[in-house]
């Protein structure tokens, strides 16, 4: 029998190879997610993937072989909330980018975290709107040159994982694509966590971002991520100045507030018990 890679069964093989650019981090994220599914023995029938617009949304859609709702720009989390309310037993997964989730859909992101709706959200942060040609995003570093900030970015970036943590999510972590095994572990934790569970995955876009800031390929990015990363524990003892330009990696928050759709169902149990028959 012909040997088949153990993860291929999680993918729509007829569509491979992916359309991601050489050196892109999206393939790593797809690989990590398929590994996480495999390790947890999750049947794809139990996964509903909801994505938005952008390169990162193409990680699950169309490559991941599960029910997929590829939605409008920025709105994936809002669509996913509707899905989760009706199918609370499904694992509803959002993989999307910084432009999508932190930019146009930033409002939905913080409110979903506040509601603590049981979504597994992976924000693939490559610092840029890559698909559309490298426009500045809400996570682009201050001073960076992009196609729409040709003289340098005058805006400060969101520290989006901290924003989501402050909004009330049950689980928040940040890793980079250099930390691929940590990402797999975090993904497994997220997929098993009740409530809003979120990982910011710092990723690389050599084509639309890196080449304008001196990071021309995937390897250059790996070296940069390795050099710049500081653990959450270590960062606690560092000053704001010392943390300048660093990427704080690790688990930021883990707590156990009641999941939103569980609360809704609890209300329904009360109301249907008391309701007069219709």
């Amino acid at each position, binding site marked *: 029998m012909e040997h088949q890679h153990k993860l291929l069964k999680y993918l*729509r093989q007829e*569509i491979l190879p992916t359309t991601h650019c050489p050196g892109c981090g999206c393939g790593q994220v797809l690989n990590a997610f398929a590994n996480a599914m495999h390790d947890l023995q999750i049947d*794809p*029938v139990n996964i*509903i993937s*909801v994505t938005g617009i952008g390169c990162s949304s193409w990680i699950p*859609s*169309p490559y991941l*072989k*599960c*029910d*997929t*709702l*590829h*939605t*409008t720009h920025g*709105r994936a989390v*809002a*669509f*996913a*909330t*509707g*899905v989760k*309310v*009706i*199918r609370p037993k*499904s694992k509803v997964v959002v993989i999307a980018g910084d432009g999508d989730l932190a930019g146009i859909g930033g*409002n*939905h992101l913080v*409110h979903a975290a506040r509601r603590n709706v049981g979504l597994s959200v992976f924000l693939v942060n490559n610092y840029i709107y890559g698909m559309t040609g490298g426009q500045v995003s809400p996570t682009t570093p201050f001073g960076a040159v992009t196609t729409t900030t040709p003289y340098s970015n005058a805006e400060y970036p969101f520290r989006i994982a901290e924003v989501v943590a402050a909004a009330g999510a049950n689980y928040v972590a940040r890793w980079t694509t250099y930390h691929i095994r940590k990402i797999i572990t975090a993904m497994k934790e997220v997929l098993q966590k009740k409530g809003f569970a979120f990982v910011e995955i710092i990723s690389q876009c050599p084509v639309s971002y890196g080449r304008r800031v001196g990071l021309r390929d995937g390897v250059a990015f790996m070296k940069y991520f390795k050099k710049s990363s500081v653990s959450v524990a270590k960062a606690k003892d560092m000053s704001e100045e010392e943390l300048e330009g660093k990427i704080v990696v690790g688990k930021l928050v883990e707590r156990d507030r009641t999941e939103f759709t569980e609360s*809704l169902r609890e*209300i*329904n149990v*009360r*109301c*249907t018990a*008391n*309701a007069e028959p*219709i």
Partner: protein
Amino acid sequence: MSRELPKVNGFYVQFEDEIGSIAAVIGAARAGAITMTATSGPGFSLMQENIGYAIMTETPCVVVNVQRSGPSTGQATKPAQSDILAARWGTHGDHEMIALAPNSVQECCDLMIECVNLSERYRHPVIFLMDGEIGHLREKLVFPMLEDLDLFPRGGFDPADESGLIKPMREFGHGEAIHITGSTHKENGMRDVVSQEVHENLISRLCDKIDRNQDNIIRYEERFMVDADVIVVSFGAASRPALGAVIRARDKGIKVGYFRLITIWPFCGERMAEIGKRVRTILVPEMNLGQLAREVERFVSVPVVRVSKIGGIAHSVEDIYMSIVNSMENRQSSAIRG
């Protein structure tokens, strides 16, 4: 609904904005629920992009727009009927639309059931185009019995479909790895944004499935039409004083007819063209500056008189009655001149 839905194990979620509401409604529909959302004016503008998503992905849902004065914030809570064209063309791209307009509290109930059925049958978003006047009405309402409702089953096949272009809807959660996208896609749901044929076939089908079922969708109400010289065409809030004015004019011996649109989109152009051949003048009282009149004009060659009223106050019977009388006098004077 926030009070009633949990009692029947339904779910009500108030979102951060109207974009989130319509998004969640579409997501919940794909997950298996019958869904709706409601808004007024500015919120309807916010929903437009995802209404297009529902069209493109053939996801049933009902969007209530209780029309109010606009543009922008306009006169908050004051009634208007000025979103007729926003309902039709508010979302970008080629598409058809289904929109119904009630003119009583009873119809708010009865037509809503019809809206749900239309959205399920044609797998298309349906706009429930109310106006603030109807939205604030208090009238007697008789709820139908649940067992008397004829509800179109989700995933069902419609034997009355005259287009042959509608496939039964599939839902998430059954291991089919369904791929739904707002991008142009092939019949298997997979994205293909390059091929001209794929786009043309998809968009033509989405439009034709509504277009060819017009006779099954379009509803209107006609009274006093048989010998009418003049007819009054209206819908929603404006149709109530319109009926009063027509009855008063009939009492005075004026041959005037009453035509009320229940389905706004698709527009009853064929019927309007037939009527246009039999009457001499068409009056269109509406709470905007002529959006419906403009549509009527596309199908008739007789004069279409705009009886517009804006500013948050509905027409009175007198307003419309006088416009009927004036139209008769104008015609007589032009006949004398002729």
